[in-house]
């Protein structure tokens, strides 16, 4: 039995594949996208989120560890090892542990609660993150359980993993959601922290064996200029492919604050810019939605 570190399971998810779905969020990601709205997904290790607005200063967490010696509302993050004891004690939920180690079977048990809704809506379960393929063993086991139960499966990936990771889950994955953020390698490194070579190598190979929904997050001043190049690239590929354009939003701001991290807000593209971007794909015969 394999265990995965996950940070959320979201039911009635409507934007992570066909139908009504349950999305399992794996913790840990190789990319550091500037616009990431799930900052708690990035590190593989559990982390403490601290919401000062919920803290009532009851002191239940004080003295449990070195990070909590200064006083009830004080939190020295540099000394926190995310053991989770404080979150367990916190009565208000001001302290929360992002990252739970669960066996694949336990995750499946929760994810399968809505199996009839999947059946009704043509939905299923999506493994997202973070990067689910960084925990490929548990991901593969989870997908296998789900497929054995007759549930449609999808994997939402950034693609920056060895091909072997895809190989390990291919058999039990019906659909891949695959992010392309930029074609320009330097730009890609600047806005995601990694090179895009492996991502661009894996995608054509994946398309040969599975349908893929390519998701392109668009941030006005970061990668909007990449749309044409992405559309050209995707139109050159063969396989069952369609594109979803994801408009940037700042809904993750609160989580950055709770993680004690700096939040940088970007401007979302306008509706007109989204339409222009979509037209780039349409004119090249690539199915696109936004």
């Amino acid at each position: 039995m394999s265990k995965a570190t996950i940070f959320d399971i979201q039911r009635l998810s409507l934007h992570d594949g066909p139908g009504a779905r349950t999305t399992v969020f794996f913790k840990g990601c190789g990319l550091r996208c500037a616009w990431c709205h799930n900052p708690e997904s990035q590190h593989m290790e559990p982390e403490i989120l601290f919401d000062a607005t919920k803290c009532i200063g009851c002191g239940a967490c004080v003295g449990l560890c070195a990070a909590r010696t200064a006083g009830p509302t004080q939190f020295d993050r540099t000394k926190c090892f995310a053991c989770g004891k404080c979150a367990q004690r916190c009565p208000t939920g001001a302290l929360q542990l992002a990252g739970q180690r669960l066996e694949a079977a336990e995750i499946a048990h929760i994810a399968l609660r809505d199996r009839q809704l999947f059946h009704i809506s043509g939905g299923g379960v999506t493994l997202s993150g973070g990067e689910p393929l960084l925990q490929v063993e548990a991901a593969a086991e989870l997908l296998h359980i789900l497929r054995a139960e007759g549930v449609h499966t999808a994997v939402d990936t950034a693609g920056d993993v060895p091909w072997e990771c895809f190989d390990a889950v291919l058999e039990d994955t019906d659909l891949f959601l695959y992010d392309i953020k930029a074609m320009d390698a330097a730009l890609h490194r600047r806005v995601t922290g990694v090179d895009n070579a492996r991502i661009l190598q894996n995608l054509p190979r994946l398309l040969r064996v599975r349908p893929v929904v390519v998701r392109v997050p668009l941030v006005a001043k970061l990668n909007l200029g990449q749309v044409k190049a992405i559309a050209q690239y995707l139109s050159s590929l063969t396989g069952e492919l369609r594109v979803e354009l994801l408009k940037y939003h700042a809904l993750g701001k609160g989580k950055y604050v709770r993680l004690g991290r700096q939040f940088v807000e970007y401007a979302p593209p306008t509706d007109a810019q989204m339409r222009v971007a979509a037209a780039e794909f349409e004119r090249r015969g690539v199915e696109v939605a936004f």
Partner: protein
Amino acid sequence: MDSWKKTAFGREYADFRAEFAAWYALYPADVSAQEARLEARLTACPQANAFARKVWVYEEIAGNCPVKIFRHYPFYFEVVTGAPRNLLGSAFPPVSGLGSWVMRSDRSGLAEDFEAFRKPPMDAGILYSTLYADLAHNAAGVETILNHGFAGMRERAKAALAAGQGDADFLRAAIAACDCVARLGERFAQEAEVMLERETDESIRARLARIAVSARRCPLEGARTFFEALNTILYLKELGNVLDSAGVAILGHVDRLLWPYLQRDLASGEITPEEARDLLYWFCAFTDAKWDLHDAVYGTNTSINIGGCDRDGTPVFNPVTEWICAAYLDLRLVNPKLQARFAPGADDAYFALIARVASSGLNVLSIFNDRVIIQAQTRMGKALEDSRLYVNGGCQEVLLAETELNSRAICYLNPARYLEMLLLKNDDGFFARERILPPTLERCNDFAEFSRRVFRGLALIINAIAWHYNTFERRWPQNNPLPFLSATNLQCLERGRDLTQGGALYNGSSFALVGLSTFIDSMRAIERTVFEEKRFTLEQLCRMLRADFAGFEAERAYLQNRVDKYGSDDDSINAFARQMIDGVATAMADMPNARGGYYEASVWSFYGYEWMRQPCGASANGRHAGERLSRGINPSESTHTGIAAMIHAFSALDLTAFAQAAVAYFTLPLSLGKGDDALCEHLIRYFLEMGGSAADFDLLDESAIADALVHPEAHGDLVVRVCGYSARFVDLEPQMQREIAQRYQRN
């Protein structure tokens, strides 16, 4: 999209609305002369009982109240009796008009007695009641009259009288009611003939000519045509209210009833599909035009049932169903409410149609799961064939068409308050007044024992309340008997008993329930913290509750955030909720009422969760005193969960224990539903499969609501689902507006 505007109906729609608005703006009409004659008869015969006085009312209305036919409306229905424009029936105290004169002339002191009974427990938040018996959510025996007409019912009443069956006073009043209908029919016909003499518009002349013929025979005789059937259904609702002040809110299961007439008329060429569709549009728009929707205190009382199944269990879905839904989508009707039943095997096209209505943001829709609701009726001893003919109204309350008088929505109960009373003994004298020796909750060995004592307490409290309503119900026949409505019911005439005397085949009663999840979560919190974790003693917990958690914020936060809650859909809490819900249903049901029937369990809230929150002290689930109580079968307001979890949790419950339905209130962002009929369809199907009972749809446009709070003048057409009824947002009380605006955040 606006093709309806090019139809004959569409071309006349604005004139119709204007004519209604101008006429009803003058209501209530002056009937002081008629009322003076009734008073004179009472002075001359002060010993006359309520049935005899009803006869006088019928005679006065038949002979001396004007009838009104509208030029721009095809149906006849309006008898001017001094009733208010928005006529729910006779609420407490009685409304104006001759129909409630019998109630007003009751010198027995019932009104005073009812007020004296209800005030102390209402002030103490133990109940909320505006009716001593149900005079607001009834239905006429529509199918019976469509088949037999009042002439046939008169013959039955006469035969029963001759045979000495039952109460002669009732039977004489029922005969008088039938005679009244006959006389009114003649007068409508004469009025149409008078109007014809000066009418020059050919299409209106054709309508008046049709009324001149039909009014003489319908509803005196059974309906022959689609037009007569439609007019009969609409007219019965109005007559029930103006003659008996009976609160006829339910038009009926109209697609099932009307389709045979329409089929016949289309086949014979009596009517074209376009004419039939126009008539249905007129029919659906009736109460929307008649009612002043700016008077939103009780919102929209009328309802139409569609879908479901027929007496044999065959799903109902036909062109009438489709046209009714089209009328709602085209006209964006607020009143009546649309009650969509779903039978096993319902057509895929029906699902798609109702999903479209749901996702349109019309917010007038409730859905009902036949599988659960019909079984709930048979559990109460009702025949399967009769149970299949259930209808719903004023909100989701269940009533078996043609065979039942069920006194519902008369009183709201709050189990969270009862738990508080048992824990803290802060009952404001209720226990002493009711001679209840409440079980003590101290020194229980375990939670099972604690739970048994709580449910014993609940049963004692609810029984005591029921005893009062039974007492008032015994006085109902002398306060406001319903001979007209009873004359639409075959069993009443066979038994010679009025509906208020238990004349119907089925005679249920039901209290409504608010705060169910507040109660469940509080019980869970006690189980966890007092009995399992031993974090607090019961005494300590009581101290916190008495103090409304002042000085115990950490403990309150723990109770609210760290104890699992109903609605989170964990196996353990689901099993616990099942036990609690079964216990509450048992405590609410099976007490005998005064009409030979039994109380039935229900979970729906109307606006009771808001009315009753203030006097309800702090709850063990961490709820502060005065904070909101849960609605219907929904999780508590502070529980963070999603709609999928909420629906899935139903699969662990047995909602067939609630014969009067267990209502879920779905609040969704309008943007979810906009253009996404599929999502609404999936949720409806999931709800049905998981064993949900009834659900109310409210799609909120967050930005529109926020703007309406600041610029109400720009949002006159913004309709929201308050709780079982719909209303224009800008007409609601500020407190209601704020509560609705906050729902989006909570959901």
